[in-house]
């Protein structure tokens, strides 16, 4: 009987593996097509879209890596993502500190105001935001992307951080206060260092959101020298519509930073999404 169970287990495990491999192939195949396609020329792509490049043509990749445009877009995306994180995590940590550890009238109303912001989609606000930014002279200015991104990132960041700050025992704060710590001292010297894992998590979420944002940089930057990678990729596709191999190389190169970051920060990203979506 036990032998039959093992056989059944083995059969089940094989089926599970087959399904997983099939799904995995659906994910990997398009990306692999892009990576290899970037090493072909367009003639090869037409006759042999799926196989190995023969011969390998590295010029698509080297051409892009040798041009200044790609690196500038990479730099812009990086600068904007880092600045967004600084602003959104800094202001959110301060606000979450107030919401988690102070009792005052109207606290819940303010908190609700932020939480409601979770339901305000970017697409809804983009047009008035554009007019507002134009009025403030922030078009073609990185702040015109950084500040709105940070503002829209506040709700989820505050909610996650508040939850975390709440779980730090009251005794820690009592002890710090007895030792003469001001609220600011407690926040800066004790709370933030203790909250490092949570800060890392919300930072990763903010970086991914900023990195992938398309609509806002699209409308804010008319000056090409400020374009971020998503805007650049779209423009590149428009410009080289007939040169499939070259566009594939650009897409693949623009994926590498995101996938590299994912490899490093996977745990933080997943725990952040899980806590943002299931614990609120």
């Amino acid at each position, binding site marked *: 009987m036990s032998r039959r169970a093992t056989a059944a287990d083995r059969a089940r495990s094989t089926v599970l593996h087959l399904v997983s491999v099939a799904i995995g192939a659906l994910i990997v195949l398009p990306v692999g097509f892009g990576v290899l396609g970037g090493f072909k020329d367009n003639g090869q792509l037409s006759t042999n879209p799926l196989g190995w490049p023969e011969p390998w043509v590295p010029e698509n990749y080297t051409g892009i890596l040798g041009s200044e445009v790609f690196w500038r877009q990479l730099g812009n995306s990086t600068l904007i993502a880092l600045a967004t994180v600084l602003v959104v995590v800094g202001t959110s940590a301060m606000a979450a500190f107030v919401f988690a550890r102070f009792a*005052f009238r109207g606290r819940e109303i303010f908190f609700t105001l932020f939480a409601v912001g979770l339901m305000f989609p970017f697409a809804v606000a983009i047009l008035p*935001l554009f007019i507002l930014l134009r009025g403030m002279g922030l078009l073609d200015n990185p702040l015109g992307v950084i500040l709105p991104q940070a503002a*829209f990132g506040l709700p989820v960041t505050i909610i996650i951080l508040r939850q975390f700050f709440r779980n730090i025992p*009251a005794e820690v704060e009592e002890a710090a206060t007895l030792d003469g710590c001001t609220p600011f001292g407690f926040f800066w010297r004790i709370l933030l260092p203790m909250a490092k894992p949570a800060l890392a998590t919300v930072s990763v979420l903010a970086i991914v959101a900023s990195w992938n944002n398309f*609509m806002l940089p699209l409308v804010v930057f008319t000056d090409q020298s400020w374009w971020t990678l998503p805007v650049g990729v779209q423009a590149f596709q428009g410009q080289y519509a007939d040169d499939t191999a070259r566009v*594939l190389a650009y897409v693949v190169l623009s994926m590498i930073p995101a996938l590299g970051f994912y490899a490093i920060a996977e745990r933080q990203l997943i725990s952040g999404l*899980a806590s943002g979506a*299931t614990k609120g």
Partner: protein
Amino acid sequence: MTQSTVIRKDTGSRAAVPAPRGRAAARRRGRPRQLGAIVLFLLPALVLFLLLVIAPILLAGYASAFKWNGFGLPENYVGLDNFTRAFQDPTFLGDLSRTGILIGLSLVVQLPVSLGLAMLLNQPLKGRSGYRLIFFAPYVLSEVTTAVLFTLVLSPNRGLGQQISEWLGIDALNGAVFADPSTVLYALFLVISWKYFGFHMILYLAGRQGIPRELTEAATTDGASAWQVFRHVTLPLLGPTIRISVFLSVIGSIQLFDMVWVLTGGGPIHASETMAVTMYQFGFRRFEVGYASAISIIMFLLSLIFALFYQRYVLRRDTEGALTTMGDQR
């Protein structure tokens, strides 16, 4: 409605605060120095939020009552004309039905598949962390990258889909999927699913891991089959996670833009156009800012009404707390 729920719930949690902290809080409340700290710490976030999130929504509401090109101050007050126009515009009505179709497909196809895969990866399976890593990877790619990649993968010339359809002898992937009004929406849905199923899968996995092992083990010991355990133990306990994932999926469908804009631009002949694309066309291309604002407001109201109803009738059951349950209940 939302607010009262929150405040009611929070009263409960405040009562549950341990005594020492309650005393400390009461002591703090009286001190002016604490008030200063509160204002100082809250102000940056509040200013940013009011100026760049709340104000734009209000401004859109205001602009929607004007026939306005977006320059100078709004003029030509037209009341609700922009809204009546939207509901008589076949493109906008089409947007609504396309959004409905995408929501329906997500709920019937995408989410169940994600749930199935989460259950799969919850089994003792060699290399499952590797599978998980790969399944989730598309989520970190931007919608633009994904969209550009798939225009080329499914392109009529030099595409991968064409090659595969030749091998399989079927016409379905022959490259015209994005150019054919009858298939474009489904092709779009497939690309969206490619990118997002891993995200929902991760949510379900996290929810599944929160279910105590004893419960499923007890059911198995009592002689329940794997399907019975799933149907009567796992699925009900996953309820809160599933409800959140449905919520995110619906809200995401209402505001879909990046993917459509890059893949099809809304075409051919509006066959894949969404509300956000229509809004962008009118607001940024034709400078009909009043009309575009009305579309923004309709999108906003759809999200808001959905969220409120969802919160009132669906999420209320979940003690776990949620995106829309504003207060914290623990």
